């Protein structure tokens, strides 16, 4: 009987070489596998009741799994610039049917179901159904009313319904004081840059997941830039009124005492002044304005 196998050094060398081969194979297979798995865009069961029954007593755990899958699904689609989010609703629908109190799922859904492709599914109607379910299942959670108001305001542009949602939510004793203020402001003014900025800032500050926060941050930066540009246009118009001509540079506006310093956008890129007093974003800035800004405003 021989107990000893090959020497330890040889064994370790063979294992190291083997692991190297395994690494090479895995790298080679990664793209093939992702292609095969990418086609797996389907859900076998879409009925919450059925999944709840099949899940025996583990519906809470199943909800967590579906929620994780929803976030991963969105992340994969978003990172691959795939605008088809057809499974986002069924995944969130199942998640919230399995666990009706899973707050982050509703809040995530209201943003990414309503946002237009390629950021979201472009289905504000489904977002409304989801958040209404959230409100019904969690009446104590006033932020769902804020989310509903936000959805009507931003995604559906129905300012009357938006105002009503903010007002309804403000009746909750725990609700923030701004709910009532927003109800009045939206009813009076409809859409405005200030309200939009405030709402996106709220979404950003109360978001629990990175995707929502990042998306909200993009909107906040864009809206701040739009507000800045509007203000800079007014300053340039003031310069024109005083000197009878447009400034040649921002430094000239600063020297005239109309600005304290060279203005920069939320990403730190200086605004640029073009011909005839046109103020715009720096070409190098990562901020993109949703709608082209009217450049020839006096």
């Amino acid at each position, binding site marked *: *009987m*021989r*107990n*000893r*196998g*090959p020497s*330890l050094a040889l*064994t370790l060398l*063979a*294992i190291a070489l*083997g*692991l190297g*081969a*395994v*690494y090479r*194979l*895995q790298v*080679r*297979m*990664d793209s*093939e*596998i992702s292609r*095969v*798995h990418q*086609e*797996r865009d*389907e859900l*076998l069961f879409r009925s919450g009741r059925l999944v709840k029954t099949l899940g025996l007593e583990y519906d809470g755990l199943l909800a967590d799994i579906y929620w994780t899958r929803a976030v*991963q699904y969105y992340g994969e689609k978003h990172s691959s610039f795939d605008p088809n989010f057809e499974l986002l609703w069924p995944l969130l629908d199942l998640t919230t049917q399995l666990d009706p109190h899973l707050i982050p799922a509703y809040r995530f859904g209201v943003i990414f179901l309503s946002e237009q492709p390629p950021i979201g599914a472009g289905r504000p109607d489904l977002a409304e159904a989801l958040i209404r379910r959230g409100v019904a299942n969690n009446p104590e959670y006033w932020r769902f009313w804020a989310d509903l108001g936000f959805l009507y305001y931003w995604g559906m542009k129905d300012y009357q319904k938006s105002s009503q949602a903010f007002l309804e939510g403000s009746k909750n004793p725990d609700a923030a004081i701004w709910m009532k203020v927003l109800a009045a402001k939206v009813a009076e003014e409809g859409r405005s840059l200030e309200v939009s900025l405030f709402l996106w800032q709220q979404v950003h500050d109360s978001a629990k997941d*990175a995707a929502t926060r990042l998306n909200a941050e993009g909107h906040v930066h864009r809206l701040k830039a739009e507000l800045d540009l509007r203000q800079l246009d007014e300053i340039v118009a003031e310069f024109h009124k005083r000197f009878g001509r447009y400034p040649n540079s921002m430094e000239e506006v600063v020297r005239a005492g109309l600005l304290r310093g060279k203005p920069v956008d939320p990403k730190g890129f200086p605004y640029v002044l073009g011909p005839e007093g046109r103020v715009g974003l720096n070409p190098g800035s990562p901020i993109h304005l949703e709608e082209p800004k009217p450049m020839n405003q006096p």
Partner: protein
Amino acid sequence: MTRLAGVVAVNTFREAVRDRVLYSLLFFALLMIAAAILVGQISIGIETLVIINLGLSAISIIGLMMAVFIGVGLVYKEMDKRTLYAVLSKPIRRWEFLTGKFAGLLLTLLVNTALMTLGLAAALLYVKHSFAAADVTILVAVYFILLKLALITALALFFSCFSSPLLSILFTVGIYVAGLFASDIRTFGHITGSRALDAIAVAFSYLIPNFNNFNITASAAYGRAVPAKLILDNTLYAAVYAAIVLLAAAAAFSRRNLK
């Protein structure tokens, strides 16, 4: 494999059959019969899909349970019953004994899986009334399950060389679960933003066996072809990884003091 290892393999297979391991087939047969009869009544338009998903999942789960629970006892049981000493007193090397045990369990899994595949085919025929060329993907999916089981068996055998069955089960199942998330571990590493954590996560994700490679159930259910290159790469991956684990097992077992 040497002749002596072959003798061990055949005996391991016989022992598994004597232990009524193949009774699992009865469970599978009942499941498939029930599914084939009931599926038409509870699912609309996805009868074939449910049969394939259910069949492949059952083949995988039953195989996994066999590989883990029998695998961890392969060496331990021999030591516990003291039959190992009688075997090793014969002119057989320890690595040959291990290889034989591995091959024996693999043979058991192969027979079991082949019979379950026949059951799945029968259920499918009952529901669809005929086979299509695309159904060959189901065989590829079964083959991938077998590759996965070979890896699991190697891991279970490795752990059984130096720990108790309970711990071996925990280690094997733990690596299996971690291996299912190998690609996600890599992504999580990127998300952390820490270069050190990212490097550790990437290294770990490549070090553990990536069991996600073997999951093509959805492709099989929809009859989507699997690239031949992937089949070849997966075969190589499973073979090389199982060889590494068996080598480590042989090294550990050869140095173990059995007195």
